[in-house]
């Protein structure tokens, strides 16, 4: 595959990946710090490059429902937003999950709650992994740490979304969205032809041919017994994801005494903190989460029997740490460190927190 080196913002990488990955439609609404996604798309005119549709909607509510419509007819459709906008999309996300529609949603997280700040944050972990909308559902959540991963996860996102008929969220943050880095972009994946769409999304409401009954895309089932069955099916799907789709990067974990558990921007900061710790003689490893759901429970359980403690590093008041603790089952101390409200912690702060909360723990 031909690789081309580029310098781009994370948000622009998302947009370029959309065009190159055969995306049929992007529907969005401006919000800082992710506005470059749609700005880039509108400037690039992908309708001329690949035939991709791009539309600025009247709200995030509308964007996500445009995505619901496009997904329901079998198209590869996506949207992007930032925290307050994702809250507005919560309705659409649960409907997508309930109706089992594949779609890609990017959240370039900013500090909250409420209108909050426009600076980076990781305080939407709960919203992304524990619902956000109503009902028993899960998004598949990918956490990029680099601009390259912003690009790559769009391709991976389509694969997962259509394999499981489930919405996929790329949970980024304001830092990854805004930072410029080099990345390699690859060949175009062509948009699906009508025939390919019918083959890859045979369940979709793409227009009823004479030889089959009509298709209905809905999340409504008034018969409770059937609704429970539908829920069983969804749960089975989520368990299958947990079985087959967990992704993480274990850095220096094999002989580590201490583990930083982190994702996205925090994982990058933790890497520097790990190096600073090494200078002080600490054996620190990093478990960098790539999928937040499915969560790497088994890997954390395994590490928890070998290490002296774990520090969950995240730009929130302590969200992911709950899942780390659940997986570690008190086999080792698990503590949290993170700045929040739009503040990015420094490697020094992270290392100090490790020393204070774990290493010098009485």
């Amino acid at each position, binding site marked *: 595959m031909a690789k081309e080196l580029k310098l781009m913002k994370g948000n622009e990488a998302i947009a370029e990946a959309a065009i190159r990955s055969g995306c049929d439609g992007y529907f969005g609404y401006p919000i800082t710090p992710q506005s470059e996604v749609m700005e880039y798309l509108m400037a690039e005119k992908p309708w001329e490059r690949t035939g991709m549709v791009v539309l600025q909607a009247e709200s995030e509510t509308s964007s996500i429902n445009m995505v619901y*419509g496009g997904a*329901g007819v079998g198209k590869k459709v996506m949207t992007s937003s930032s925290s307050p906008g994702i809250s507005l999309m919560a309705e659409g996300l649960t409907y997508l999950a309930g109706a089992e529609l594949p779609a890609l949603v990017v959240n370039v997280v900013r500090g909250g709650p409420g209108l909050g700040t426009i600076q980076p944050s990781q305080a939407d972990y709960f919203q992304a992994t524990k619902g956000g909308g109503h009902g028993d559902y899960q998004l598949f959540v990918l956490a990029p740490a680099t601009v390259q991963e912003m690009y790559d996860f769009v391709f991976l996102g389509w694969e997962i979304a259509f394999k499981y008929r489930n919405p996929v969220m790329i949970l980024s943050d304001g830092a990854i969205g805004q930072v410029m880095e080099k990345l390699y972009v690859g060949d175009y994946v062509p948009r699906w032809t009508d025939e390919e769409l019918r083959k890859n999304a045979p369940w*979709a409401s793409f*227009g009823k041919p004479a030889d089959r009954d*009509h298709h209905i895309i*809905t999340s409504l089932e008034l018969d409770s017994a059937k609704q429970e069955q539908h829920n069983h099916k969804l749960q089975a799907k989520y368990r299958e994801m947990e079985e087959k789709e967990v992704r993480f990067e274990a850095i220096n974990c094999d002989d580590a005494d201490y583990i930083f558990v982190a994702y996205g921007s925090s994982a990058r900061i933790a890497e520097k903190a790990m190096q600073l710790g090494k200078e002080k003689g600490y054996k620190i490893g990093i478990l960098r989460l790539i999928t937040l759901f499915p969560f790497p429970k088994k890997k954390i359980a395994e590490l928890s029997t070998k290490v002296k403690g774990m520090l969950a590093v995240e730009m929130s008041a302590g969200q992911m740490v709950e899942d780390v603790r659940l997986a570690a089952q008190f086999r080792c101390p698990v503590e949290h460190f993170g700045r929040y409200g739009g503040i990015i912690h420094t490697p020094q702060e992270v290392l100090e927190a490790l020393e204070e909360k774990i290493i010098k723990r009485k």
Partner: protein
Amino acid sequence: MFNQDIVKPENLVYKKTDVLTDKIMHYCPGCGHGTTHRIIAEVIEEMGIQDKAICIAPVGCSVLAYNYFEVDSLGAAHGRAPALATAIQRLNPDHHTFTYQGDGDLAAIGTAETIHACNRGENIVIIFINNGIYGMTGGQMAPTTLIGMQTATSPYGRTVELNGYPLQITELLAQLPGTYFVTRQSVHTSAAVRKAKKAVRQAFENQKNKKGTSFVEVVSNCNSGWKMTAPKANEWMVENMFVKYPIGDIKVDGEIVQK
């Protein structure tokens, strides 16, 4: 039965279209929803567009509309049907995407989606059923409920002081340059049904010719919500609803009809 001898295919004048499924509709006896479903289905059959028609069902009484149209369908979240239709039609420009929405769905919770889809001139057909009440949830006040009309949430009658005015959203939408055809119809008599069907046909023809948004309001009854028999509800509709919501074309070929 009389004249059974003439029951032969060559004498057939009217039968239910196959673009409606055989499922028994859940609508109350005499409800205009069924009649409106029928004329839409007939138009789809007559135009030969069953394979390209995509129905977007709303939330409300017609939430299960997708069970009755023998076309590929999607159920939208409350009020969001025009957003779904926008994307589907843009992604499939030769399809016939239509929404079917009640007054609560279209003119209250979905006002933004409705106005912006119409303002963008999305090449979709919107069928709007206005019976001035929330039927499915038990007869609460709708944006189109008439002044003085009693509902479950305006038990002493709607007042301007408390609830504001009935929303003439159809007239409002006609002002937007994106709408090409805006009309208000009814389905309470055979003549009205024939006219309404002609309007629905016009809407789908406009869509075929990529003219922008076609909007067909059907002023309808809600005999359960209004607490009347079906024939009585139709009379009440003519005497009261038609005063606030007069029947006729509002915008044709992109031009407001001068009255």
